[in-house]
Structures are given as C-alpha cells and as structure tokens.
C-alpha cells in the first residue's frame, strides 16, 4: 500500500525531496543491476570452463602430444608454442617499447613530431588484429622470406603489443616525481645517468605490469598468428625460430570449429589451459602493481 502511495506522490510532486530520493534509489538500483550484468559473465565464464575443463586436465594432457588426429592425447606442443611466441614477442617488443616510452617521457619536446608519434601509437592500438595478420604475412612471411615461422609470428605480435607497452611504461615513467630528476641533475648527473639510476628503477614495477599485460594479450591472440606462425598439427616440436608452431588459441579455434567428432571435454580442457595462462599473467601483473605501491619511497 505504502508503495503505491509513494508512486502517487512521485507523480503528483516530481520535485519534492521524497520523490527525488525515490528516483535516486531506483536509479542506483538500476545501475547496480547493469554493473552486475557486466561482472557476472566473468565469473560465469571462468567457473563454467573450470567445471567442464578440469576433468580433461591431467599430467598427460599437459605434457603429451595429440593422438588420434587431435581427438585424444595432450596439447603439449600448443602450450610450448604459445610459450615460444610469448617469449619471442617479449624479445622484440619490450626493449623497443621501453625505449620509446623513455623517449616520450624524458626526451621528447612538445612539438608536432611528438604529437604525430602519439597519434601513431593510438593508431597501432586500434588496428584490427587480422590486419596485423595480413601485414605480418606480407612483410615477414613473404617479403622477408621468413616463411610461416615463430619468428614471423613473434614479430607480428610484437608490433601489435607495442602500443600497450609504450603507454603503460610512459605512464610509469611520468609518475616518478620530477624533483628527483632535478636533484640528480643538480649534482652533476647527465640525463641518461638520471634515467638509468633513478627514473628507470623507480618505474620498473609499473613498466613490468604493462609488459605482462601486453604479453598476456599477445598470448591469447589468434588472428595475427593465423597466417604467420600457426600450424594445426605438427608431429614434432619446433626446432628453430624459422619453424612453424602450434599455439593454444589457434588450437582451440580449430578443434572447436573444424574437427568433426571432437570430444567436448578436450575442447574445454584446452580453453581452461589458455584461460589459466592468461589469467595467471594477469594475477602476476596485479600483484606486482600492488606490492610496488606499498613499498614506494615517495
């Protein structure tokens, strides 16, 4: 009864304090529902995959090669492949990305060229992953003749990961108080000495967080490696950077769309391993970030 009286009140006097408060409470509840709608899928996804994929996980699954086509056995080569690709991506993108971040934070003047660099970075961040795949195919696989290889895949993924690393690294560098740099210069240090001894060490946790988050994305991407590195079934592990490789995301894609009669359990198991890999990296990054914040000396 009370409820209808309040709605009536709202209609009669929409600006009264009571009706505004009611509107607010309804509104907040609505927002709350929306937020739950956003967040619930995460739980649902992780728990569901865990639930359906765990039965497939065994020591064999993680360390053996696929058998019976790919319908049984393990996914070891895919795991190793993703591992290699991630390391390869790190080798190229981390030095380049940190170098670019140092340039933007410590050296770059406020000029048109610097603005163009920033626009370029934003653009790199927005390019569809499949276009990266095309680019990688055109330049690394074909033009530079690397063929379908870990090298081509890593290079492609590196360029894709570059914007993430650059922006988080730059933010970490800028967070270091300017006063440190001034003090360092005032006792006779050069700019590079200041960077090497003070700025870089202090911003390292933030940089590492960004690097790990970037690599986590690279590990989960399929489109860039579709034409540049990935192969569906290889009887042996890749023995050089110029060999093609299997990879977890690509493997999951194929077994869920192109293998008739594929046991569902293995599909979920593969998805679980991939998610565990990605979320594990996420966890490491977040831990580094919060521990660094606690131990900061400024």
């Amino acid at each position, binding site marked *: 009864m009370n409820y209808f009286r309040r709605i009536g009140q709202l209609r009669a006097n929409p600006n009264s304090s009571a009706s505004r408060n009611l509107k607010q409470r309804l509104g907040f509840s609505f927002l709350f529902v929306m937020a739950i709608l956003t967040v619930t899928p995460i739980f649902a996804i992780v728990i569901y995959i865990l639930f359906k994929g765990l039965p497939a996980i065994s020591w064999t699954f993680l360390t053996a090669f696929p058998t019976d086509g790919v319908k049984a056995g393990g996914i070891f080569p895919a795991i190793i492949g993703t591992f290699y690709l991630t390391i390869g991506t790190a080798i190229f993108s981390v030095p380049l990305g940190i170098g670019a971040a140092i340039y933007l934070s410590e050296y770059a003047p406020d000029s048109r060229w610097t603005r163009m660099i920033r626009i370029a970075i934003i653009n790199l961040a927005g390019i569809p992953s499949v276009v990266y795949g095309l680019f990688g195919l055109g330049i690394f696989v074909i033009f530079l003749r690397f063929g379908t290889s870990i090298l081509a895949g890593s290079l492609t993924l590196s360029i894709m990961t570059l914007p993430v690393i650059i922006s988080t690294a730059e933010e970490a560098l800028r967070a270091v108080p300017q006063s440190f740099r001034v003090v360092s210069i*005032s006792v006779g240090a050069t700019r590079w000495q200041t960077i090497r001894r003070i700025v870089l060490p202090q911003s390292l946790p933030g940089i590492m967080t960004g690097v790990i988050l970037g690599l986590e994305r690279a590990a989960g991407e399929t489109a860039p490696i579709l034409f540049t590195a990935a192969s569906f079934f290889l009887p042996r592990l890749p023995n050089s950077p110029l060999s093609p490789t299997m990879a977890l995301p690509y493997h999951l894609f194929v077994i869920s769309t192109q293998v008739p009669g594929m046991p569902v359990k293995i599909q979920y198991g593969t998805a679980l391993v991939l998610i565990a890999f990605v979320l594990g990296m996420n966890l490491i990054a977040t831990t580094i970030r919060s521990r660094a914040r606690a131990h900061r000396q400024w």
Partner: protein
Amino acid sequence: MIKIQVEHLNLQYSDGKESLRDINMDIAANQITVVFGPAGGGKSSLLRVFNRLNDLADVKLISGKVILDDIDILDPRIDVTALRRKVGMVFARPVVLPMSIRSNLTYGLEISGEKRESELTEAVERSLRLSALWEEVKDRLNEPAVSLSGGQQQRLCLARSLVLKPEVILLDEPTSGLDPISTGKVEATLQELKEQYTIVLVPHSVQQAARVADSAAFFLQGELIEQGPGKELFIKPNDKRTEDYIMGRFG
C-alpha cells in the same frame, strides 16, 4: 676576494615569468651572500643561473656574463656537469632520493666515477659531520632516507651537496618547511661552513636574512635594487623600496 662576478645578466623565460634585468653584482668568497625580496623577484632564477639548472627550463633569452673563477659559466662550451659539481644546491623542500641515507650521499660521487669504497665511506662521514647530522644517523646509514624527519632530511640534502667538495653552495629557502630548532641548526651550520665555502642564500624571511647575511642584495621584480654589507643594509638601507620591504610595508 670575489668568487662570482655577474655582468649585465639578462634572463627571460618563454612564459615571461621571473625575468632578470641587467643584473650586476659580485659574490664574495667565504661569505654568506643573501639574495632577498618579494616573490617573483628573480631570486630563484639567479641561483639557477649559477649552476646552469635553468637549462632544464624554457629559457627564451639569456645574455651577459657570469664569471666564476675566471670562467664565464654561461659559455655553451663549458662542461656543465663539472660546473654542477663545483656549485652545489639545496632546494626549498627537502628532496631525498628514494634510496638509503648512505646512497643519497654517495650518489653524486658514483655518477662522477668514484668507485673506491674507502673514498665513499670517508665522504659520507665527512659531509654528515659538516652538516651536523652524523651523530643522529651514524647507526642507520642503510635505512631509507624518507624515514628521517623534515629537518633531518634537509640537513641530509645539505650534506649531499657537500659530498662533492663544491666551492659554492646555493640554498633556495632551505628552511621554509622547518621548525625553529631545525632552522637554527641549519643557520649555525652555514656559519661554520662559510669558512671554507662561498654561500649564496635565498632566505624565507627578512629576519633570517638579517640574521645570517654577511652581504645582502635586494631584488625586486627582476632588478637588483641594492647590495651592501649585511649589518648596514638592514639597519639603514639606501633605497626607499628596500626600506619599505624590510619594514614590511609591502611584500
């Protein structure tokens, strides 16, 4: 003996703030020269010319000569890092580097190439004694410098500038954040230091200026109004503007 000679110094920043106009002055060796005046007068800018720290800022125009021991330090060809080791600076708010107390002090030596442990240790003790901090921290040299109190941090910054055996020490309102006791300790230390060093100080109050100055220079809106021996300037200044400021009629 004259340590620094400033001749027709002009300085302008791109944003037009804190300029200096045609400054001519002498800084005597082994004395405390105080540069005082209201905000925006150019005092900090002047100090930063002496160690070329304003190279970091947006300087539109700088002309004139600043001669330290027969060398014009404004000459683009000189080795700026060597200059900064010769001319040390202490800032208004104590800025300790995010390292241990000891590392804060050895930083300046390490970047100039000094690696010998013995030299570093000796320098740490010497500079801490000079800035009257040795007794308080000698047992915790490896603790983070941020664990010190404000006054201690400022004296640490003073010690840091002494480690490199400079000839000139610049201090820009070094006691502005400190309590009276710490302020007194710093001022006493400066009196002892002046026997070996040339000190240029921007005070944070006229009273401090009067307490410590051997020579005082009054700056107003980028111009040097007058300069004279401390005892005389504060009792009987020549220029009315100086007198008005000292009396607190403006500022």
